């Protein structure tokens, strides 16, 4: 058993354990912590695959950004009758059965799919090539991703504005108050 295989097994086990923890955790705060484990596991898997830039981005954006956001959300909403939001046993059974069925289907399907030959000794292009592709510099095959990049940028801008609008504190203006009553 070579080192990469051992490393992969460790990382995979951690990630899978984390994901299972997210599902099974009763408390939402604990689920957030298990999610942290799973996300870090995925970013390590990226490093293992040789995609250093993506691994770093995963760590920064998810672990540093999204997850913190979620914890904030949990903290703000984690008041009141939380005990009422409990999953019934029937739902556990149903959900578990469905998920395992799906897992089985996906595994059989991906194993049956044709396996492409593994190129020897090639590494993934790094952040430089990625950036060039995003900026519209075509590589040797002529592919460039300037348009998707622009679309994602605009999407992000729209989403930011929308989020700010949705989450803003609702203060009644004097005019509105007068109109209402």
């Amino acid at each position, binding site marked *: 058993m070579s080192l990469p295989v051992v490393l992969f097994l460790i990382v995979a086990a951690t990630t899978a354990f984390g994901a299972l923890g997210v599902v099974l955790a009763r408390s939402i705060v604990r689920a957030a912590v298990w999610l942290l484990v799973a996300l870090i596991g995925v970013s390590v898997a990226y490093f293992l695959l040789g995609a250093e830039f993506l691994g770093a981005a995963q760590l920064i954006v998810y672990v540093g950004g999204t997850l913190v956001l979620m914890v904030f959300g949990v903290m703000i909403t984690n008041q009141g009758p939380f005990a009422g939001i409990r999953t019934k046993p029937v739902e556990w059974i*149903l959900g578990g059965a*469905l998920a395992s*069925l*799906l897992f089985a*289907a*996906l595994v*059989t*399907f991906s194993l049956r799919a044709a396996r492409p030959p593994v190129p020897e000794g090639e590494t993934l292009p790094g952040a430089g090539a990625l950036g060039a592709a995003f900026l519209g510099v075509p590589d040797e095959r002529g592919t460039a991703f300037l348009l998707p990049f622009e679309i994602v940028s605009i999407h992000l801008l729209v989403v930011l504005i929308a989020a700010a609008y949705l989450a803003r504190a609702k203060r009644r203006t004097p005019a509105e108050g007068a109109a209402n009553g």
Partner: protein
Amino acid sequence: MFNPFDFAEHPGRAYLIATLLPLVPVILLLIAATARNMARSRSHTDSFASRVYWLLGGDRPLKTGGYLSLVFLLASFGLSVWGLLNFFEESHTLHDQPKELSKRWAERGDWLRIGAAKGIRPAAALQTGYRIDPLSALMFTMVTGIGSLIFLFSLGYMNEETEETVEDHAAHTTRRGRFGRFYLYLSLFAFSMLNLLIADNLFQVFVGWELVGVCSFFLIGFYYERKSASTAANKAFIVNRIGDAGLLIGIAIAFATFGTLNFQDLAELIDGRQPSEMSHGLWILMGLGLFVGCVGKSAQVPLQTWLPDAMEGPTPVSALIHAATMVAAGVYLVGRCYPLFAPEVFLTIAYCGLITLILSASVALVMTDIKRVLAFSTCSQLGFMMLALGVGAWTAGLLHLLTHAFFKALLFLGAGSVIRGCHHEQDLRQMGGLRRKMPITAYAMLVGVLAISGIPFFSGWYSKDQILSSALGYSVAHNRHALLFFGPLIAAGMTAFYMFRLWFLAFTGPPRNAEVYRHARESPFTMVLPLIALALCSLGIAWGWPPWDAEASFLGHMLHEGEPLAARTFAHARESAEDHHLAAGGLALLAAVIGAAYSWSLYGRRAPTTAQLTEPTGVLAKRWYFDDVYDFVFLRGSLRLAALAAKADRSGPEQPRRYTLDGAMSGFAALAVFGGRQLRKIQTGSVRQYVLALVLTLIGLLGMLSAFAR
């Protein structure tokens, strides 16, 4: 690159352009009419709109539309004459190279491809194309020529349609003039008819067929304020639909069996023998289907009832559409489809023509409306043509079609001139002595009467003589069918009788209605000129050298060249026709002279007595009760059936029963409401149930994918 003006390589394209030319005034008139109507509603407020409105004629319709249509049809006529002369010349030089000739004078292309699965059978296609042969070239020139003359005639006849208000005495209303609309329909008709003529396949013929049908409907119902006109238009349309259904059946059988509708291909596949692809019964059925279409269009028994009623349209329309061209389309199609027919079908055609020509001629004996006489005469003459085609006299039948077009157009235009001169008096009993008031009309019509009666050296004589001698030859060769000769012989006598009766009643003797006589006057120049032209054509269109030989004429010669090979199956009858030619001609002439003489003794020698001029009664005046029987069987029958069905459907005035049609419909509605209620419950609004459904779908899809991936 398709160059429609490539006449050197494809002289047939001249006909293509000549067909499309009448469509130009149609489009222009439509645009002008739309602009005028839009401007009219706004002309009070908008100065630009009012200027447009006045430019387009204001309250009085302009005659420009008529001139425009006339010019384009004349151009079309010129092209067709050029084409005819060229074709005549080339058919001589390229006589032994039919491939080369058809390459220059016929083209086709796929229009709609009907895709069959690859490899099973080659995909069939509906094609469009044109094919010029002697028949279509002659017919084309005839239609454009007569059409131009009638367009010219209409400029005078429809003059009152340019007035701001037209008083319709028959409908007791006043309305605005509809000059442009008249020419719009006429031009559209010209285009459709020409399309029908140059078509090289049954489908394109069908398209033209329906288009001329709808133009006929519009024009019969031109004075649609009159109840009789709108009813007649409906009748013509519906009766023609019956024929068209038969035509469609025939076309469908041909297409399903052979996968092509091209005349040339079909003729090669069938050519008078039973093709191996279809059973004998199907072959007969296909022929009968095609013939039923022709029966409807050419007003043969039993679908003849619409044509006399179609005389409600303006008289030039009757001349162009319901005498010279459109009704001849049925005969034309029978001539076109000649190679496709089974022997039994030919016999049906002959007998159908026989019955029609006898019945219609007998009815024409007693009619008193000048246009009705001519209408029944048209039916009868079309019967002659059908009979000729049925007994194998292809050339004779189609020659009669051409000559008949000229003298019947002449007679109708003459009648139009008389009607206009007498201020819309159509009753022969109110006329008399008009020869002195309108001499040109009278003598032009006399030429037409002589031609239709079959007096020697008038055009009608050549064709009728040939038809009768062919009929005699056929009945000599097949003794059982002797009626096929004696019927037309008697009808020829009747033709002479009723045509001379018409002429004597209208133009000779003392005036029977002083009021009408006093106001009668000769028609203006635009109407007299076509009469003279048509009279000259009726006299000499079939002349040749030597003058007593019909096939020596240009028409006969050309038609003879175009005769399909299928006509050779009648060789036996033809030989005996050659032998008995003189006898048949003599008998026909005798019949005509007796008819004319009897007519003269009754109406010409002295003024007819009032007893002769009372309202006709009896079976002839009732038109052999066809209308009454149809009315009783089909009209009342279907009304009764409908009433019965309505009664069965409802127990009370507003109470639909449960298990009838109405109930079934309500059941469908209730089912939809119930289904909607049930479906509504699925929409719970719960996110997790949606996710559940989503995941289940995903699993299902993955399962299907893995099951069928291999």
